[in-house]
């Protein structure tokens, strides 16, 4: 027994040493890359690491091409527009009379889903023919959503909207529902083509590339870019980063770090402060989601440095900061107006009208030219500007805004 104490102490110390030790092969590699980059400026962007396992070249190319295509439909109603639609017949679903619409929602646990959910409810309220709207919230749990979908099948729904929590796990549940009722899937997808239509904006590659291309344009050759990611292993976030990586690798900018922030503002601010300290100057910040963009901006302000080129998102707090500070910035978006589309699609299907099999919505980016159109100081800081909800009844109060 008496020998145990030093032993345990040794374990503790060695753990700490190990924690430091196992990483020691990383920094030299990083410095080696940056050294070679500065020695040979023609080298490809350094420091971005391995390409993500989630990267699919064909999808990447398709999404990047989609960005320049003109969507069909009324440009003032982007939630009704579609890019390259392949229409399918829905005549077999046609029905008369009132509609009972059902919705299995993955979660309402973040501001993005909150804004979307409000917009969907407002869209339902616009249509008198929807006599009943049943929505179940899976609270971010796959098992609850599977039983939600099963439960909704027994409730006499005329159409079922599903926003899946995860792709693979929810696929069998959606397949089972397809046999009984027309299914509309939006946001994240499922591994089956049995839904009548799958609705979402262009996607993560376009989102990631929009931000990265802006930085490549604004940051001088050899300039230092810091990339901030929320967490690894989530497909929608992996596609954003892999597109940015592909863009940076072709450019002259030097990626000095790729860090995970857990989407936490305090951590983001700490990480950015560390990089400012270590490198003296950072010329651009890329982010895979804009929720902590303001914290990143503040890190530069607090360090007494000019704010470099920034990639954010369409949340009001960032747009406000952008406007107030005259930032060099861009905001790629994953528009919340996509929550309106499934309701419209359901009514089209039940009226026997054609809908696109894959309903790709436009995915605009906010630039300094369009900033004023999207900035609404009367809306709460975490409101997403691309809600497409400005003309809806109950705006802005139902979305947490103040009448101005």
């Amino acid at each position, binding site marked *: *027994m*008496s*020998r*145990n*104490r030093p032993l*345990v*102490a040794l*374990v*503790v110390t060695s*753990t*700490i040493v190990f*924690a*430091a030790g196992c*990483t*020691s092969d*990383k*920094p030299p590699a*990083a410095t080696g890359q940056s050294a070679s980059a500065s020695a040979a400026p023609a080298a490809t962007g350094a420091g971005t690491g391995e390409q993500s396992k989630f990267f699919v070249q064909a999808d990447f190319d398709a999404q990047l091409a989609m960005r320049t295509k003109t969507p069909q439909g009324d440009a003032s109603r982007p939630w009704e527009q579609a890019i390259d639609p392949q229409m399918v017949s829905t005549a077999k679903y046609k029905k008369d009379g009132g509609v009972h619409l059902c919705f299995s929602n993955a979660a*309402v*646990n*973040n*501001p993005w*889903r*909150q*804004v979307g959910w409000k917009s969907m409810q407002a869209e339902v309220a616009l249509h008198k023919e929807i006599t009943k709207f049943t929505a179940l919230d899976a609270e971010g749990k796959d098992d609850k959503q599977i039983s939600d979908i099963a439960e909704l099948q027994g409730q006499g729904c005329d159409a079922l909207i599903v926003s899946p929590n995860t792709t693979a796990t929810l696929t069998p549940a959606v397949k089972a529902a397809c046999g009984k009722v027309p299914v509309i899937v939006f946001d994240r997808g499922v591994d089956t083509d049995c839904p009548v239509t799958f609705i979402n904006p262009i996607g993560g590659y376009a989102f990631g590339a929009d931000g990265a291309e802006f930085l490549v344009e604004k940051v001088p050759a050899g300039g230092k870019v810091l990339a901030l990611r929320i*967490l*690894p292993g989530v497909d929608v976030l992996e596609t954003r980063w892999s597109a940015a990586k592909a863009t940076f690798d072709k450019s002259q900018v030097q990626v000095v*770090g790729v*860090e*995970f*922030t*857990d*989407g*936490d*503002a*305090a*951590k*983001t*601010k*700490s*990480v950015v*402060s*560390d990089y400012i*300290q*270590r490198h003296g100057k950072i010329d651009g910040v890329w982010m895979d989601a804009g929720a902590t963009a*303001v*914290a990143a901006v*503040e890190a530069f302000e*607090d360090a007494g440095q000019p704010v470099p080129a920034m990639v954010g998102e369409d949340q009001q*707090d960032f747009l406000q900061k952008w406007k107030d500070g005259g930032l060099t910035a861009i905001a790629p978006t994953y528009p919340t107006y996509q929550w309106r589309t499934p309701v419209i699609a359901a009514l089209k299907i039940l009226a026997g009208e054609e809908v696109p099999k894959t309903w790709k919505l436009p995915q605009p980016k906010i630039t300094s030219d369009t900033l004023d159109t999207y900035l609404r100081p009367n809306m*709460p*800081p*975490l409101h997403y500007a691309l809600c497409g909800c400005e003309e809806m009844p109950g705006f802005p109060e139902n979305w*947490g805004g103040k009448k101005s």
Partner: protein
Amino acid sequence: MKRTLPILVVLAVLLAAIALVNPFFLEPAGFLAFVKRAAPLVILAAGQYFVIVSGEFDLSVGSLVTVEVVVAARLIDGQESATWWVLLLLIAVGLLVGLLNGVVTTALRVPSFITTLGMMLILSGAVFLWTGGAPRGALSEAFRTFGRGNLGPVPWSVLILLAAGAAAILLMRSDFGRRLVATGDNERAAALSGVRVARTRILAFVLSGAAAAITGILLGGFAGVSAQVGQGLEFSAITAVVLGGVALGGGRGSVVAAMAGALTLEALFTLLNLYGISGALEFTVQGVIIIAAVAVGALRLPAWLAKHPPRKQGDTHVA
């Protein structure tokens, strides 16, 4: 002081390791930035220390921090004039939650693990219900000064940390401190020698609640409104206290060591970050620390190491 020494050594080693990678750390501004970042956790750990040394746990502090920040943003809503009364209200909320934890634990005899776990769920559920996942409103500039601004070259949060740390040390040197440790060491003996055990423990929970309120004010000031601000902080605080050599179950350890434990934990996170290790590993590191530190604490000192005979009743090793 003897019990404080090991953690101070570990802290010094880690700080040296950081300075090696990042020389800016040695400049006053660089070091102050580190202390500023660590201040919320250090204060929270001091609060947690009071509860742990009295033989209890407080798992509710993380969600209490979130509540404080979200409530502050909603009530201030960007108006500078609202800052001061909201600050007072936040402190009051912290005290009240602590009081509830303490009364339920002592009067109703619910184990504090359950009381504060329940409180954690109640608070996080209430925040979610109230905000729907998206906090509203905004903090005022005056409010944010405490976590973000400086007085001359020194960040406000460092000054607040010094004041809170001094207060904690004085408290532990007072009669209250002795009663608190005696309660954690041997509840029955303490009661027999005239300590009002229940009242002492309630006060410990109240102090923890107050610490959580201050932490919330500093964190909200540092980085702004977020519904995730307090996530996992209760475990960071407990890890920090345990890392400082404070015995789970109570009765042993000093508040200085607990605060040094928090600084050490923050230094370790900073180091991991400097080496580019993903944040996911932070939990792993905390888990290893908790288990290892408790394992070390549970072992008996061998005779040749322990120059002094086993600790006497009331020998508190305070500060």
